[in-house]
């Protein structure tokens, strides 16, 4: 794979489309184990991201990601804001000054993004959070020659597997055993992010 500035913007565009289209679905997922705002939060955040990206011109992939990070941090509102914001900030820092990103640099950046999410939210694998999608995707990037269809399958399977997990971090943790049986909202939005990436690198 290779990611150019245009690819990165397209990636955000596709993510935004999916999030806007599935806003109700994300909110419904957050309704059973949270406060029903994940769809609203993400839709607001990514809409602002697109406004920002459309109005600017970029010299590097990392600058695009930095704007994505800052916008998500200040516009999303819920836990997802600082977490996605941190993830994109780490991507941006790791890919600093790149105009084009190759697969191994992206894999490395993804690893730092995952570390960033862990550092910020103090959660780990298996706690029914977005990490349960980010970690398998990151593992796939570090170990393989990335293929679009495999990436989409990995992300989707990971998202679906959060159904069986019990939430021990974030707002869903207050629901204890009741959190079992439903897909984690942040994992669903992360799936949209990575399936959009798969479309871009196809």
């Amino acid at each position: 794979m290779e990611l150019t500035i245009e690819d990165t913007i397209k990636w955000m565009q596709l993510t935004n489309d999916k999030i806007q289209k599935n806003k109700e679905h994300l909110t419904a997922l957050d309704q059973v184990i949270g406060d029903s705002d994940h769809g609203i939060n993400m839709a607001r955040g990514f809409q602002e991201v697109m406004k920002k990206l459309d109005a600017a011109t970029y010299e590097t992939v990392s600058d695009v990601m930095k704007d994505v990070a800052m916008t998500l941090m200040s516009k999303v509102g819920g836990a997802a804001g600082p977490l996605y914001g941190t993830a994109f900030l780490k991507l941006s820092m790791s890919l600093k000054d790149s105009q084009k990103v190759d697969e191994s640099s992206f894999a490395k950046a993804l690893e730092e993004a995952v570390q960033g999410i862990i550092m910020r939210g103090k959660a780990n694998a298996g706690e029914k959070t977005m990490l349960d999608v980010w970690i398998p995707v990151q593992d796939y990037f570090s170990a393989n020659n990335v293929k679009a269809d495999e990436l989409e399958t990995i992300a989707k399977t990971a998202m679906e597997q959060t159904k069986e997990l019990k939430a021990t971090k974030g707002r869903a943790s207050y629901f204890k055993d009741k959190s079992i049986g439903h897909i984690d909202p942040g994992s669903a939005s992360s799936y949209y992010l990575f399936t959009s990436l798969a479309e871009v690198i196809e």
Partner: protein
Amino acid sequence: MSKVGIVLISHSSKIAEGIYELIRQVIQDVPIELAGGTEDNEIGTSIDKIMKAIQKADQGQGVLLFYDIGSAKMNAEMAIEMTESIQAKLIESPLVEGAYMAAVESGMGKKLQDIYDSVKEEFHCENS
């Protein structure tokens, strides 16, 4: 004399306002700033609001931050990192009682670290 400032962070702007009222009834001369709700005053927290509150609450003696649940903590930590020039500390105590106690101690002219230590001790908080 300048005093240690206090920032009240809550998902709800009404919660922050309510605590402010409660404290102001007894303590008038301590800077207290509110960061309740999102930018649109919906339920949630905002890094920008927290950063502005830190800046306004600082009289040079530093600022103590109190928060309610979950994501407020992450946003508070990021706001602290982004306002490096100001000495700011986050406390894990119960929001209402912790902030009340800190305001009283700040009013007595105590220093940031001393207030931080005594609030933590009072509420047996873990080290953050």
